[in-house]
């Protein structure tokens, strides 16, 4: 167990590699109860969220989900979030544990100008992510419920208690996330594990998300990075008038000095966060996420690079504790599922 944003979190149960492969080929379950939930309710919900977060919230139908960013006034990313639309004027925002209190403060402050009610709902929910090609089948057979489609959300009953089920995850696999009554969470966990779902820890969550180039806030995305440098321009719709939209528009039009790029190690070596990226004697960037990819069986990572170098094919060297390791900028995602 390791401390993580005030929670004691398991890094691994039986081993990161086995857990990772289970999610890619079968089904795994993650306790992500550390993630925060914020309810947004009231007639001003949509106009409030359009101002507060970067994506076009009007595009979310009731029962839909969307990835978005919460920016500071300088267009730095306070957090990356999922927004679920539960009802006409009712939304649920899923936050990262480490940023939850900052998100809550920021959203509460913006909400003063809108006819909207923002409240912390984190203690109402335990959150279990069940991910992998067999996740849905096992869940349906075990819990006897029909599941919302990918990127859809719906209210269901789990263990005879109200629950919210989301066709989302952060692994690059199909699957769902269950927001359930914390009292019944241990029993649901046990039931799913007994049905063959493999318990997975933070370690596998990190390798899975990095293989498909999903950002980890705090590493690949911080208050000092803007969405365009981070490659998240697709999650920003400036015409909605979100806070920071004017700055994002300038970054989008003029380009940024640096860009986040995924890379593969060509031979031996495992890159780690903080490793300098070199071309000859010139430092051209820094690794923000790096690990061993259990699917590709080689070192992978993401790094902020001088923008002109952040194109697939660029040859780099990663300085891994004094040893130069050959690497090449790749396209996204680093791991693609075989069809």
């Amino acid at each position, binding site marked *: 167990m390791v401390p993580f944003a005030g929670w004691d979190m398991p890094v*691994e149960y039986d*081993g990161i590699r086995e857990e990772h492969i289970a999610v890619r080929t079968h089904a795994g379950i993650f306790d992500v109860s550390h993630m925060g939930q914020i309810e947004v309710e009231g007639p001003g919900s949509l106009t409030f969220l359009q101002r507060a977060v970067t994506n076009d919230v009007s595009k979310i139908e009731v029962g839909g989900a969307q990835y978005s960013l919460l920016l500071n006034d300088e267009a730095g990313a306070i957090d990356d979030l999922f927004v679920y639309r539960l009802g006409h004027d009712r939304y649920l925002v899923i936050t990262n544990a480490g940023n939850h209190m900052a998100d809550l403060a920021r959203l509460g402050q913006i909400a003063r100008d809108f006819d909207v009610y923002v409240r912390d709902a984190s203690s109402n929910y335990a959150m279990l992510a069940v991910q992998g090609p067999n996740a849905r089948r096992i869940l349906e057979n075990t819990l006897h419920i029909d599941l919302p489609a990918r990127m859809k959300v719906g209210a269901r009953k789990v263990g005879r208690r109200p629950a919210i089920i989301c066709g989302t995850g952060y692994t690059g696999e199909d699957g769902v996330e269950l927001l359930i009554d914390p009292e019944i969470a241990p029993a649901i966990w046990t039931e799913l594990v007994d049905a063959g779902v493999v318990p997975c820890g933070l370690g596998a969550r990190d390798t899975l998300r990095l293989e498909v180039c999903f950002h980890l806030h705090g590493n690949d995305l911080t208050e000092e990075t803007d969405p365009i440098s981070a490659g998240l321009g697709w999650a920003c719709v400036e015409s909605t008038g979100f806070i920071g939209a004017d700055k994002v528009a300038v970054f989008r039009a003029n380009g940024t000095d640096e860009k986040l790029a995924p890379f593969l190690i060509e031979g*031996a070596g495992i890159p780690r966060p903080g490793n300098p990226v070199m071309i000859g004697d010139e430092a051209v960037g820094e690794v923000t996420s790096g*690990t061993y990819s*259990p699917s590709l069986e080689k070192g992978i990572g993401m790094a902020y690079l001088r923008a002109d170098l952040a194109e697939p094919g660029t040859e780099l060297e990663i300085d891994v504790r004094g040893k130069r390791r050959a690497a090449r900028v790749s396209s996204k995602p680093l791991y693609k599922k075989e069809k």
Partner: protein
Amino acid sequence: MAEASYPEDLKYHPEHDWARIDGGEATLGITWYAQDSLGEVVFFEGPEIGSEVTKDQPYAEVESVKAVSDVVAPVSGEVIAVNDSLSDAPEAINADPYETGWLIKIRLSDPSEADSLMDAAAYAASLE
């Protein structure tokens, strides 16, 4: 191997490394406890043959998915062999840390250094 084991014929360093002393040479590796703490090893790269390792100093790294760890030399000497099979199968360090999972062989520069190492019983006691 799933169960902890500390063979009687080895000498142990408190940084969780072992040495099998054979006359003027020694085979080095990491203990069951070390590989269990580290998790599944996915990468090992040995030092150059002919280079020197120094007692109590790191001479290589072993990496699991989650972490990198220094490997400390229990005794000093010149590297005369590196276990090349580990570059394709580093998991041998977990499966069999004392036989197929050995890391390097050295020619001892000061055989008396081995006297400062622990025997299996003392090392096992140090882990309690």
